């Protein structure tokens, strides 16, 4: 019986992995072959038909290096800020006693229900008015704090026994020291999740960076790559090459973070 259920579990995992991996695989193959190769020869192209021409075309159309750098700057800024503000807010929402804590948390939850698109125009007007249009800071500014990391970390902190926090306070640690040296290490998997979530959403941002930047050199790579999709007819293989270039860093991030995540889980809450 045990064997059957283990086999079933493996089968489910294999199927799920295939569902996730298939589009990525076809993207890579399409990016490395000329148009129509998959339709003509199936999913296993011969080694001889592989080409880097599509990537060369991408680098001709798009300012790859500056836009990668802008993306990296935006991701770094947004992620650090979101995790920092998230951790501080979550700490305040869990440990110290103060009136209106429930209301404050409800307000944070409320921000999760507001569709991002509905605040794009007010943000645009504000960021333009303070002269930050077409800058990296302008791209990141509205997203320096986000509801989801606050929620995630608040739930994680709430699982830490209050006695641990009280003990650290009794030992003379201030709020900031308690947060950084006691609470955050106890919640490493959730902190990692928050980092990954913030980084991915910063990397994948499209509409806002498009709106708030005007020049090619201050654009993120996501916006830059969209230039490969000609409005009327595009070259599918070149599009796939662009997609691969954008997906690679996120795949690396998830793979690396996965190890931290698993490590954190395996090591237990405290160490």
């Amino acid at each position, binding site marked *: 019986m045990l064997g059957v259920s283990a086999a079933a579990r493996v089968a489910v995992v294999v199927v799920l992995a295939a569902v996730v991996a298939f589009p990525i695989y076809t993207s890579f193959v399409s990016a490395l072959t000329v*148009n129509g190769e998959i*339709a003509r020869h199936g999913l296993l192209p011969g080694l001889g038909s592989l080409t880097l021409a599509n990537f060369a075309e991408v680098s001709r159309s798009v300012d790859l290096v500056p836009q990668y750098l802008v993306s990296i700057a935006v991701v770094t800024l947004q992620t650090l800020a979101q995790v920092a503000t998230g951790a501080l807010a979550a700490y305040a929402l869990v440990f110290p006693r103060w009136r209106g804590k429930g209301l404050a948390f409800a307000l944070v939850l409320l921000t999760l229900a507001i569709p991002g698109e509905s605040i*794009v125009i007010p943000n645009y007007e504000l960021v333009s008015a303070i002269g930050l249009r077409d800058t990296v800071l302008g791209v990141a500014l509205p997203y320096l704090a986000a509801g989801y990391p606050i929620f995630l970390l608040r739930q994680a902190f709430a699982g830490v026994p209050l006695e641990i926090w009280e003990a650290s306070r009794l030992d003379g640690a201030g709020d900031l020291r308690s947060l950084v040296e006691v609470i955050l290490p106890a919640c490493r998997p959730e902190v990692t999740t928050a980092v990954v979530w913030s980084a991915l959403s910063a990397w994948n941002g499209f*509409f806002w960076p498009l709106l708030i930047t005007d*020049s090619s050199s201050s654009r993120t790579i*996501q916006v830059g790559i969209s230039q490969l999709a*000609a409005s009327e*007819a595009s070259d599918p293989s070149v599009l796939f090459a662009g997609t691969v270039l954008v997906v690679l860093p996120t795949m690396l991030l998830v793979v690396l973070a996965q190890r931290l995540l698993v490590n954190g889980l395996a090591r237990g809450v405290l160490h």
Partner: protein
Amino acid sequence: MRARTPLVVTAAGLLVALTACSSPSGSGSAGSSAPGPSALADAQGVTEVSVWHGLGGANGEAFQAAVDDFNSENEGTIAVTATYQGVYADLLAKYNAAIRSDSVPTVLLGGDIATGFLTDVGQSIPAADMAAANPDDLVLGDLAEQATNYYTVDGVQQAVPMNVSTPMLWVNRDVLAQAGVDESDLTTLDDVVAAARTITDETGIAGYSMQADDWYIEQLTATAGQDFCLPANGRGDEPATEITIDSGLAKENITKIADLYRSGVAVDGAPDGSAAISAFQAGKVGMIVMSSGILGALKSGEPFDYEALPFPTSGPAGESGPVIGGSGLWLSASATPAEQVAGWKFETYLTSPEAQETFSHATGYVPINTKTADSPSQKEFLQANPLAQTFADQLSGTPVVSASAGCVSGAMTAVKAENISQIVAAFTGQKTVDEALDAAAESAKAAFADYQEQLAG
């Protein structure tokens, strides 16, 4: 990238919502305040011109090359900075945001379906006014009437067509030969439908494919000699209030194409054209209906024997023909007079016979300056590239009538989005053609009414 589609759709919705907030100023179809040549002559130093466009890929590279040429010709007086701002829908959403913060570019190269909206928001000087004030620059009469017809609203030419595409029937000659279909027999839609069935019956290869995009549904309507929207394709005194694809020849045509999909003769009717292009290149489909603009993509794949034929018609000759695609140049009414004249000089350059010749060779677009045809190098090019000749012939041969002008309305973006989902439902068999077209017509009515209400509010 993954969150892209909903954002674009939302942006399109936002665009309609924003019209209510922008007050028409500076434009208007009569009584011009267009500046003349002295505005630029009196300007000190270099006049900066900002340009936003939605041309990606090879088209974008060719556009940038034209910008560079213009800048080197005008060094010391005019400097143009062109920036890609997303596909047409994104570009328009961005333009909308810019209206609200008074930061619109001097020149906007806006997609064709935005014509109604861009006219209504009144942020641009009509091209007709600029041409009248600057007689030494662009002569609008030199441009193909089929293209200027599209950008003419209430009898006034609002924008200058820059890149014009035209829909074609692309055929794979090897597949046609295998099925015993003669390409000279493919002139009407019925010919094409019958040929598609023959191809599948004789060879087992899919006979037909068409991107499930509203542009092609507009073509099936216009080539039937039918106005896409009523009254008068939105070009008269009254704004458009309804679409006509649920009636007449347009409905018959859509039904015929839907039958091809349902019987397995046609494949890959997805809203994204990439699948159809790839299938065509791989010889998996005999005929596809696609823009002339795909030529670049076809050239970059593995070579095979293909041909572009005129878009099949179903309506009476002289009253029916395809609608143009592409985009037009809109000149900002809020730029300084010197910038406006400099922008107009840029538009003059882009639509000049020479620039149009170079641009059309690098892309699949059709030269819209009729004088391009007189150039010896163009004649040579057309001889060596018969497909470009076919595109040009189709454009010049299209009768300048109401049906081929296409529908103009600020609600077109919303109408288009809903039509696409209904067409996909009809092609895949989720709905009957009747149900899908009725639903499309109902939502279009609501979209037109909403738009008018917001415009009035």
